[in-house]
Structure formats: C-alpha cells, structure tokens
C-alpha cells in the first residue's frame, strides 16, 4: 500500500537512507585512500580521497567524473615516477580487490545519493514541472545490503574474468597482451549481443494485436509503396479536378 502523500519540503538529508549511503560512501573513500597509499601513490592519494569526500558531503554533481579522472591520474603517478618498472611489480590480488571494491562502493553511494537529491529522471525538455527525485522515506530497507553484496560480487567477478582471460593461451602466435584484451572485448560484446538478441526476440514475440497489425500494414506499404503512391496521387488529382468543375 502506498504511503501518505510525500512532503516535498522535508529535508532529504535527514532521511535514514541518505545517511546510510553517506556513511557507506565515506567509508569507501577512506578505504580507497588507504588502498592507494598501499599501492604506492603516496601523497597523491589525498586528491581522489578529498574529491570523493567533497562530492558526498556537498552533493557535488561532477564529483564522480572528477574523481575518476583524479583516480586515473593518481594511479598513473607511479608510472611517471618509476616508469614501467612499477607496473611489473607482482600484483597484490587482495589490495586490488579492496581498491576496486572501495571505488565501486563509492560510486554506488554517490549516484544513489544523487538519485535522492537531484533526481533519477532526465529533465523534461520543456519548462514544465520537473520529475521529482527518489523519496528517501520510501527506499526499501534491503537496498543497501543488496548494494554491498553487488559491489562484492562484481569486484570478484571482474577479478575472476581478468584472471580467466590470462589462463587461455593465445593461438597462432598472437601476442599475449592483445589476445587477452581481445578475448575480454569479444566476451563483453558477445554477452551484450546475446542479451540484446534475447530481449529483442521476446519483444517481437509479445507484440500486441495493434502492434502486429501495424507491422503487417507497414510491410505492405513498404512492398507496394510506389504503386500505391502513384494510384493515390492520381485519385487525388481526379477528385480535386471534379470538385473544381462542380
């Protein structure tokens, strides 16, 4: 059953869901900072940490994008400092997982906070009433735990996928780097095409009678477009000439 009419004047920042996502985001930012330090970013680790914290505190709408740029830059710092030698270090799977999980958790929290404060629907093209943001009071209680589980699962899946591509040996003398990347790209594209194909097929199977009738008419029109056009133009011309004479 629906809740009572929402109160748009209520401060969304005081809602439990907002507080929960803020805590989750801040915790993720802290963990990310620690992981960056562990990674060897040094003092540069402060930049993405501060950007992330500011985005959460002030609902800075560009924060996720700036954060990603800052993170990319921070992770490239070792390259500038130590050259490619830094990248040839042995990987620390746990450290990578923690870093990826923390970044992902931050993004989940930040975008969901935006959904509750700025809105989730695109703004309307005309200057009409804008769609309301998510009501924090109506956010289900299981959403946050589910988000945390998703973060953990996705991080592990990404790591597993990357490891899996390394285990497939390249045939025909293809270099291992391009082979691994190509395998990853083809796998993702194939999965996308598969999902798209299945949903598209289901959509065609579930056409309503009106949609099916429209499709059949459209096919008929396409097949006989030229002939029908000529016939109807002459008919129109004849009718108008008759009307003018009358």
């Amino acid at each position: 059953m629906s809740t009572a009419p929402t109160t748009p004047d209520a401060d969304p920042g005081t809602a439990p869901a907002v507080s929960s996502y803020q805590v989750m985001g801040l915790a993720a930012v802290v963990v990310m900072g620690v992981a960056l330090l562990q990674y060897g970013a040094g003092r540069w680790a402060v930049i993405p940490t501060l950007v992330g914290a500011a985005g959460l505190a002030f609902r800075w709408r560009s924060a996720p994008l700036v954060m990603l740029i800052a993170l990319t830059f921070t992770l490239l710092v070792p390259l500038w400092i130590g050259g490619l030698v830094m990248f040839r270090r042995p990987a620390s799977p746990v450290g990578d997982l923690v870093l990826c999980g923390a970044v992902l958790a931050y993004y989940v929290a930040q975008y969901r906070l935006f959904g509750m404060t700025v809105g989730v629907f695109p703004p309307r093209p005309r200057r009409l009433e804008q769609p309301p943001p998510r009501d924090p009071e109506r956010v289900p209680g299981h959403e946050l735990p589910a988000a945390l589980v998703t973060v953990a699962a996705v991080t592990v899946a990404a790591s597993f996928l990357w490891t899996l591509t390394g285990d497939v040996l390249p045939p025909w003398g293809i270099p291992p780097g391009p082979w691994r990347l190509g395998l990853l790209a083809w796998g993702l594209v194939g999965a996308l095409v598969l999902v798209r194909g299945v949903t598209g097929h289901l959509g065609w199977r579930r056409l309503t009678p009106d949609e099916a009738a429209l499709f059949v008419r459209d096919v008929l029109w396409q097949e006989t477009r030229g002939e029908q056009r000529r016939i109807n133009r002459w008919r129109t011309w004849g009718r108008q000439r008759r009307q003018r004479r009358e």
Partner: protein
Amino acid sequence: MRYRRPGPPQGVPGRAAVVYHHSMLTTRGWWFLLLVLTLLAVGGIIALRTPSAHSIHLLLGLSLLLWFLWEWAAFVVQARLAVRSLAVGRELRDERGPVGTLWAGRTFTVRLRARLDGHLPLAHALLTDRPPAGAGPVEGQLHDHGPLAAGGENVWEYQVHCDAPGSIRFEGTRVQLADPQGFFYFATFLRRPAVYAVLPKLVDAEARQRTTKRFNLLPPPGIHRLRRPGSGSELLDLRDYRPGDPPKRIAWKVSARRDKLITRELESEVPIRCTLFVDASDAVRLGPPGRNALAGLVGVAATVAQAAAGNRDLVGLAVCDEHAADYAAPARSPAHTTDLLHRLARAANLAPATEAAEVPPLLERAYAFATEVYPDLLRPELNTFPFWLPWISPPPAWTLRRPRWRSRLLHRFWARLPRQRRHYGWRKRLAALIAVRERLPAGALAQLLEDDSACARRLQQFLAEHQVPYEVPLYDRRGRYLFARPAKVEVLAKALLRSVGRGHDNELYVLLADLLELEEDQLAPLLRAVRVARSRHHQVLLVCPWPAGLPEPDPDAPPELPRAGASAEEIVRLAERARANRAWRAVRRSFGRLGVPVLSATTGDPARLILLRLEQLRAVQGASRG
C-alpha cells in the same frame, strides 16, 4: 501478456492495453560509460605496452563496467517484463462514494490504484495520470513515485472540476522507470481510456423556474399545481351535488353525515408535451468546449427538460446535425430525463470539422499527442519511414488542394525543406496509426498520405475523439463562411414534421438552432415544417445563439456608422454587429410571419420564457378541458 480491449468506463483496475518499451541511457549514464571506457582504454594501452604488467586501471574499469552492465540487465528485465504486470485502475468519487456520472460545476476526486502483479519489483517508478482536457487538476498530485514491490499497491488521488456539460476522457497513465543511479530511463504509457458523461447542472432546474414560484420541483402527495376541477385522480374539493354530476363522484360518507348529496371534485391533470430540437451541427460547435454556442443551447435545453419533467410534463428531444437527427420521443419518467441529459451531454462535446482544414497544423498537434499516448504504435521498428523518401518522391504540386502559382513553381524545392520532410514522416506514421485504430482498409495508409482532404478529416476525428482542441479555418480563400451548414435545415424540418406527425395534442416545439448565417430561401424547408406545426395548433419557439462578444440583438436600432477616423478594428466590429442585427431581423421576420417568437440563447433568460410558454399552454388546455 495477453491483449485486452479497454474495458467499461469505470475505474476497475486492469492490465495495460499496450506497453511500449523505450529505454535509453540518460546523460548521466552516457558520461559514466564514457569515463569507464576511457579508463579501460588507458588500462588497455598499458597492458599492450607491457603484456606482463599489472594494470590496476584495467581491473578497475572492468569492475565499473561489469557493475554498469549488471544494472542495465536488471533494468531491462524490469522494463521489459515487470512493467507488463503493472495495472493502474481509476475510480471517480464524490463525497458519498464512487460515481459513474459527473455533474457540471462540481468537483470530483480521481483515485488511482497501481498494482504490480508477478514476481519482479520495480526499483523506481513515476506514474503520472493524464488528466482530461480542461478539467483539472484543482488539488492533489497527478503523479506518484517510488518503488513498487511485487504484489504491492500504490494509491494516490487528485481532484478535477467539471466546468461545463459534456464528457471528460481519461486516456491512461504515463509510466517512467529509472534505476536508483539514474543511468537508465524508460517511458511507456498504459492506455486505459475512460469517458465519463458530465451532465448539466441540476440546481438550475429550480433556480430558473418562474420567479413567482408556487410549487416545489416535485410536488409532494396532495399538493397540486393546477388547482382546477378536472378528470384527474386526486381530490380537489367537495361541493353540493348538482344535477348531472356522475353518481360515481358522490362522496357517500360525507353525504350521509351532512344529510345531503355531496360531490367530489377532482384535480385537473394537464400534462404538456414539449419537444426540444437542438442544433448540434458544426455551426454551433465552434469555439472552446463549454463556452461555445452549442454549450449555451445545451444548457437551455437541459434546464427546460429538467424543469418540465419536474412539472410532470412530457419532454422529447431531437439532437440534429447536418446529417441526421437523434430523436427521443416525449416521456416523463426519471429514467427518460436522465437519458435526455446523457444525450445532451454527448452533444455538448462534439467538435467542429471541415475538410478545408489545413493538414500541417493538425499534423503537429496530432503527432504531439500521439507521441505521448501512442508511443508504442510510433516505434520506428514497427512504423517505419525511409528518410530518403521525401528526397526521392515528395508530394507533387498537382495533388495540392489549392495550389498557387508560387506553389506550382517552387513546390519541387519547397517540399524538400527539413520541415516538409519531417511533416511527411509524421504524416506517414500517423496515417498508419489511424488506419490501425480505425480498422481502415489496407490501402488507407497510402491514401491518407497523399490525399489532404481525407487526411484532414481523419486527423480532426482523431483529435476530437481524444478531446484535443484544434483550430479550424472559418472562411475559405474566397471569403465564404465554411460553417453555415444549410443541410441542417432539412434535418431540422424532417425532425419537426416527424414530431408533428406523432403529436397528440397542442404541443410546444422549441427549436434551438443557429439560423443567423442562413439566407431566407435556405430556411424554406424549416418554415414549411413550422407552418404545418402551426396549422395543427402547436406552439413553436425559436432560440438562436447570438454571436459572443456582441451587444444584445436590437433589431430596431438604426445602423451605426463608424465615426470619422475610426480604426479598422472598430469598423469591422460595427460591420459585424450590423450584419448580425440584419440577420436577426431577417430570421425574426421569417418566423414572425408564422407566429413563432424568436429568442436569443445568450441574452435574457430563454429557459424561463420557454417555461412560461408551457404554463400558458397548460392554462389554455386546462380551461378548454374544464
């Protein structure tokens, strides 16, 4: 999901008639995807340069991309599967509970109930009801938003105010879905059209009775309107027996008490038959719904019908347009009165139409409406239009209805302009939509695409059915008025003759018609029918709508000349007034010769005058019977 046709016009929850899936990435989603792909590209470059390197960029990008794809998959499942189990029911209520019929001048509550069946929830849905044109909302919110659990219900309500009699049409509910992050967006429209009749006000039946009110609307038992002796069934008085009184009227008990013969006098029952002929042709439909001439005529007819029925008179109705008449024989039961009000409400909502209307303005309005309510039938996958078609074969100049020399010369170039190409595409899509909705023959699509007259007619029907207001031209290029509609005179005359042929006694016929735009020779069939009615001793009244914005008709006023230096606007206004007064004089003269009074529908109180005429007729009949 199986297709269900739209149900009865009640607020019973039902499945969506049609579901349209239109999902897309929002700007936020595009930006995020772009950044993630950039991160992956950076990681890929590093991985290519150092195959044995440990690229955290790639792993990070892959994590974010997998999360994005996971959210997309979850959203697609909601949009393609879960939303098909969504049903929105509508219920209209007043302070006493659900209603099926509305009344003009009152406010009603629209209660909506969204129910999600199945096993899949919706993370975030914004449900916005599409209110009927010109009826609100006056209070409350049109929308409800939030998550919708499987098997759950959301209820919200708002209020609408019905200004004028007619009908209001609810099209359905717009459904917008989004994921909690705002990356994906999906819009659909759950069509569930419902039309509710808005009956004319009831209070006016009493308020517009004669000012010297003598009786209640419905006389209680024992109270009678015409206190004259007659042959009714109710006791009026007791008097001494007179020789010749029928023995059955002797009051034996009273006679025994008084020891002389006493006779009962009974009430006179003089029901008058009154038939209202309402002109519902295109001539009176012009103007905004509820404020045009037809609304005025319907208001007068509804008041007279209710007041006469309240006086236990028999009221009939004939709603005439230029093609046919919808006739209801006189009767006086409450059900009959309600039926008359429903017929009047249906008539009040008719919209004008002319084949002379230009296609582009109608096209723009119809396409804007269709994209909102029929997005499923405008999908490019189903309703295709090759972009190159207007370049290869645009509509030629020789199929235009009124080609000018400029059109003939420049049409080849003009038809390839972006606006014309866009309109050609819209026209094809709307033609296909209308052909499917109206179940037109297979070749209708191509005909609507090439024939302007047919397309204009169908587009006006489409807009009128959905109560979308549109503009029509009043004059053709030669300055001739397009909405005189002389054909309605023949229909009115036939309806009047039919009533006269079935008439029982002296009846009152009220013609509520706009005849000011017609010449005297065009009125001849109606004048002949009125002459027949008058020869049978029936009474006839003519009520004409008067053009809005003009002072009351004054046939005796001398023509007013414009003052020196008058503006063009003032001269046109004076000319319009002089023309209306001239037409009024002509109509009065034509009908006055036959003893038919002519009243203005918009000035004075025609309903009261009609009721007064009914009273006079009753008195005459009562006297003749007594």
